[in-house]
């Protein structure tokens, strides 16, 4: 039976480099997609992705099993994204608002224009979600987190997390013509 993520992180904390390699292999894709679909620009996404792992490496000495490893890792990612948005001048309070920068006129999502029409609408809708709602959706579908885990990773309460997820789901289903 494969070791759990938490045991691997503890093993890495004790100096087992192989444990980290296994952890990284398991979560590299999910975390990368979470970041790249949150910030859109590929170069920025790669930079943020690397920084998130660096922070996880630096914080290994303080790691304790208090929650799932993914919750811990995506909490680090959330904080790094919030920092990034702050630097871009986007207020954290606006994470839930509809009038944030992705919906500004002239904004053109890149990379998915060749997709089928329905998928294109879905991608566009995902891109245009307010950051907090998009984050909740990505944590739910990419990191496979429950509402409680999303609340914990984003430092909010379950009601807020549930609400964000519900709004995001409704909009994306509408984009798919499934409302």
């Amino acid at each position, binding site marked *: 039976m494969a070791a759990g993520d938490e045991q691997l992180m503890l093993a890495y904390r004790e100096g087992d480099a192989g444990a980290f390699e296994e952890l990284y292999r398991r979560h590299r894709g999910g975390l990368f*997609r979470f970041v790249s679909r949150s910030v859109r620009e590929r170069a920025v996404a790669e930079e943020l992705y690397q920084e998130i792992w660096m922070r996880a490496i630096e914080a290994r000495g303080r790691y304790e099993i208090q929650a799932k490893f993914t919750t811990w890792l995506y909490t680090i990612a959330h904080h790094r994204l919030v920092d990034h948005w702050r630097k871009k001048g986007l207020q954290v309070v606006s994470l839930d608002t509809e009038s944030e920068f992705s919906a500004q006129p002239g904004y053109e999502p890149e990379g998915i224009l060749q997709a089928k029409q*329905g998928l294109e609408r879905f991608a566009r809708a995902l891109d245009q979600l307010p950051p907090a709602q998009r984050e909740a959706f990505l944590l739910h579908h990419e990191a496979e987190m429950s509402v409680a885990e999303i609340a914990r990773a984003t430092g909010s309460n379950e009601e807020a997390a549930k609400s964000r997820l519900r709004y995001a789901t409704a909009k994306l289903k509408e984009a798919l013509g499934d409302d």
Partner: protein
Amino acid sequence: MTDERDPKLQSAYRALGAEAPPRALDEKVLAASRRAIEVHPAPLVAPTGRRSWSVPLAAAAVLALAVGVTVHMQIEQPGIDGLPPASERDRPEEVAKSSPPAVKAEKPAIAAAAPPASGGELRAKPAPEAQVANPARETTANTAEAGPGTLLEREQRAPEERAKPGSDRSLARARDMATEAPAALAKRADAAAQPAAETPDRELERIADLRKQGRHDEADKALAEFRKRHPDFKIPAAMLERVERR
């Protein structure tokens, strides 16, 4: 809403593609993870364990240092305030043997002439009869001998205190030093204020010698001068017989 995922949304999301970080980025992260372990190897003993003995060790070191400094200060204290070293104070019988009472009675005068650094005043233990026959000494030592902590009493107490365990003796000595210090300073100030020549006792002895040698005129003159200088001094009867013309 439950934690269940909508299958249609799930499949649409999966259809967006499975992007992955470039291999170069993977290598950077993995290299950093290995470097972190090499540079800062994880402790074999949990940090809490290390702290558990390092804190008491530091506390013990501080305590030992504090005790050492305190003992050192106690040892050095006699040299600072002019008291004799502890070794001398612990051997009063030797002091008594080497200097008879009469000689000891003269010590204050010597001490008065000499600078106060000798500390002889505090060490001198006048014989009881010398004290009775010599009220001047009482006047001189008035300040120091007033109250419960007189030198005489302290000297009488000394053997008992020396019999006590070491720590009690040290405490008693420290207490004595604290009470003696102001008195000793006062005595030294009195002595410095007096003429460096003689004490009344010594002066009377000198007059008695003159009388004994038959130099009565000189003795009369000296006695008159003495009475002029010390109008309140009551000459003991025994001494009066020796200094007055018969």
